[in-house]
């Protein structure tokens, strides 16, 4: 059986024009890999949104990274001040990975 190692998965939902903010924070936290998924819409404290804007200003992207505990904590610390002001949403969970040294 293949060995797996536990790592942390951080997911951040972020407005498309603000993606670079997250990438900067990720780089500063030492994160070396991430993937971004498209979204369709949602509901939150600032109401409904849907990616039907000609502007693209109202669309959001789901940023996902799997990394070790230290970098995850650094990333969360870097992002926490932005959560409220930029209305990002952040989740953390555990995942197991193969080839743990990569993450």
């Amino acid at each position, binding site marked *: 059986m293949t060995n797996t190692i536990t790592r942390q998965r951080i997911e951040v939902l972020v407005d498309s*024009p*603000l993606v670079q903010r997250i990438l900067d924070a990720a780089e500063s936290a030492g994160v070396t890999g991430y993937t971004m998924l498209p979204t369709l819409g949602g509901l939150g404290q*600032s109401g409904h*949104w849907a990616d039907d*804007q000609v502007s*693209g*200003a*109202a669309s959001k992207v789901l940023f996902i990274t799997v990394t070790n505990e230290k970098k995850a904590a650094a990333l969360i610390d870097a992002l926490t001040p932005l959560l409220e002001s930029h209305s990002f949403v952040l989740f953390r969970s555990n995942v197991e990975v193969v080839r743990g040294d990569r993450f």
Partner: protein
Amino acid sequence: MDFLLSPVTLFFILGVVAALLGSTLTIPEAVGKGISLYLMAAIGLKGGVEVSAAGFSTDLASAVVAGLLLGFLLPFPTYFVLRRLGGLDPVNAAAVAAHYGSVSVVTYVTGVEILTASGMPPAGYMVAVLALMEAPAIVAGLMLARSGGTDLGIERRELVREALLNGAVVLLAGGFVIGLLVGKQGFSAVEPLFQDAFRGILCLFLLDMGLLAARRLREGRALTIRLACFAMLFALVNGIVGVLVGTVIGLGAGSAAALGILAGSASYIAVPAAMRLALPAANPGIYLSMSLAVTFPFNIIVGIPLFAHLALSLAKLT
């Protein structure tokens, strides 16, 4: 009122009615974006070709200066009104003000259609004014926000990129330059797409805009009646100011009307993205609803014919 009977306006109304009735009709986002890129390239090209035929003129220069000034100055009274009477905090007021100083490409395009059909086509150089008016209002809005005590969430480099290099400006200005370079003869090779098909494609885009505007109106909880009234007031007042300025600086009736349309319109492409970056604390529900759900339809149905009429009357006076 026969402008209401043009297919372009009717497709917009169809979109509004369909969305208000709750139809599930939607234009795929990629298609809507593709069409809007096409429209910007086409309008830029056509403007450039016209200027290459007519040559540069002092009118062009004065229209450009007037446009830049209007774009930069209009946000200030707008901000003031929104703070005092609109009940908005500094950040939201500044974000909305930036939208009203900037311009809506589709409102302009629709206006050109209607002005041309009414025998008063604006000069080709108005496209250059359109492209140049995207940016100054962003700067004005951010100055207002900073004066209101907000830290900007953006670096200068990023801001320049958003204000001067967003897709709309690049396509409008790039198309304009290409049109200038290739002239009438070079344009003829691409005329079937960029000229002949233009009005039909505009119909489909206005259908989409009608759907988007009406849906936003239905869902827009952030939009109060008071703000909706201001969204119409700004369109009206700014538009009239634009027509007056255009007439005073000696533009023809068509170009003066076009300057009014530009001044009266509010951005919903370039400025929202810039505000999301620079003023993330401002609520998109407010500025997108005001510009897209109120000002845009208001201008299509009321503003454009009004500014055209006013410009024509003023031209007859002088």
